[in-house]
């Protein structure tokens, strides 16, 4: 039997190298028929940056990764907020943004919520810190939050720290490497909201060290050897940090199981973290 084997060669197209450049508002990032993604606008043939940041041209898309700026909610973001008010039908949440989050009572009590029967303060009081997810936002109305989901809801303890929302991806690091370094170096558990609010849970001394590390990351977010600096600060060797990445984390009695889920949820998001891939390879 004569079998003809036909060889098919797939030509693997070389992935074009990511081009990065520092830009300021008004500066032309690219020309031509490229796709304008985030923080850029099209003016005729040109694509112009609208922020101070790093311009990236990859494949046919152009975007600018901003280095400063307020938190603008995006759908599916995990945020850490504080309940500041409530009405008969919803809570109002300060989420470190120019917009206040709205958490409808129906999403907590279920569809048969009745203001006559149920009291909002039974579930969340003014001053409570919550982990929530943005489920709807289009700038014309305040962002709609939800606390139904694994790891969402009231955060019972911990210390909150605010950092610049633009530096959140850096704090998380590539696939969560930075946060993992800090957690293992300080014996704390951390929850990072995309809005720049970080909750640190642990022993008081450990919390202080973790906060120092978080502030270091914020201050020196653009330094290329940041990972080493953080490891130096916390006194961990790079090998330890490397080993940590593949270790299953032990179950910490101090932390609610729900929180570790939140942790993972946050980390899942970091793969798309914009600044995270800036970190140098170890």
């Amino acid at each position, binding site marked *: 039997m004569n079998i003809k084997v036909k060889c098919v060669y797939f030509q693997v197209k070389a992935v074009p190298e990511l081009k990065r450049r*520092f830009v*300021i*508002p*008004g*500066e*032309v990032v690219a020309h031509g028929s490229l796709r304008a993604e985030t*923080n850029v*606008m099209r*003016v005729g043939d040109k694509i*112009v940056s*609208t*922020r*101070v*940041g790093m311009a990236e041209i990859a494949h046919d898309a152009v975007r600018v990764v*901003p*280095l*400063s*700026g*307020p938190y*603008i909610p995006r759908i599916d973001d995990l945020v850490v907020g504080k309940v500041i008010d409530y009405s008969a039908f919803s809570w109002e949440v300060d989420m470190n943004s*120019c*917009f*206040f989050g709205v958490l409808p009572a129906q999403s907590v009590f279920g569809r048969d919520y009745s203001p006559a029967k149920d009291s909002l303060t039974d579930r969340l009081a003014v001053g409570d810190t919550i982990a929530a997810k943005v489920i709807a936002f289009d*700038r*014309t109305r305040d962002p709609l939050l939800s606390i139904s989901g694994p790891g969402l809801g009231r955060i019972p303890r911990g210390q909150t720290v605010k950092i610049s929302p*633009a530096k959140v991806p850096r704090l998380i690091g590539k696939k969560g490497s930075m946060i993992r370094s800090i957690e293992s170096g300080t014996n704390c558990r951390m929850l990072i909201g995309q809005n720049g609010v970080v909750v640190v849970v642990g022993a008081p001394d450990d919390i202080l060290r973790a906060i120092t590390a978080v502030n270091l990351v914020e201050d020196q977010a*653009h330094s290329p050897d940041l990972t080493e600096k953080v490891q130096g600060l916390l006194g961990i060797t790079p090998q330890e940090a490397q080993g940590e990445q593949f270790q299953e984390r032990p179950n910490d009695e101090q932390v609610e199981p729900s929180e570790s889920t939140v942790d993972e949820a946050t980390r899942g998001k970091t793969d798309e973290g914009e600044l995270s891939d800036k970190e140098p390879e170890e």
Partner: protein
Amino acid sequence: MGKAGGDSRSLINEQGLRIDGRKIDELRPVKIEVGILRNADGSAYIEFGKNKIMAAVYGPKEVHPKHSALPDKALLRCRYHMSPFSTEERKNPAPSRREIEISKVMREALEPALMLEDYPRTAIDVFVEVLQSDGGSRCAGISAASVALADAGINMRDLVAACAAGKVAGQVVVDVDDIEDKEGQADLPIAIMPSSNQVTLLQLDGQLNDEEFNKAFNFAVQGCKQVYQLQREALIGKYFGRSEVPEGGQ
């Protein structure tokens, strides 16, 4: 308030140099720093000759009083203020007619560069505080405010760079200082968006004929472009370190 145009012959000497030794197309030394105030969302400090001006941006944030919020865009509020110690004689700290006017033209000069529609129902506050004044403070203030807005991470179409030109001792000069402003014949402050070449502020105090106006306008635009380079260097220097400042803009 017209220009006195008094004894202006001595303002430019035989060598064509001005009272502070500058050529007619030379700016005063300019220094810009970014991110100098920790509490502000964005800030900048500018030294434009003897002018020392601080700009701070707060926001976007919720609007108080709530009824003044705009449903489709952010509300931009500007305050230009001269400190009581900024002038030779103590200045009354209450906002004067001049300061109210400059606050308004400053807002109108910055507004076209800002993408206010990205932040509906919010307010952006811009404070420009003159610590030491030396003529041309509105231009220096606009330049600093624009850098502070970029530092605050507010979406902008372009930066705004400002510079004045004027007529002193019968000659058109760039960047008039306090003495030249008082003794000279005209002052033409302009602000531009340098990348898109659009004018956002143009005022004229005094009289210029067509030819003089065109020359003064071009001088001022050149001055703005020099200011823009310094704004750019200051911003890139803050975020990426001085060594990263690339040559040339576009």
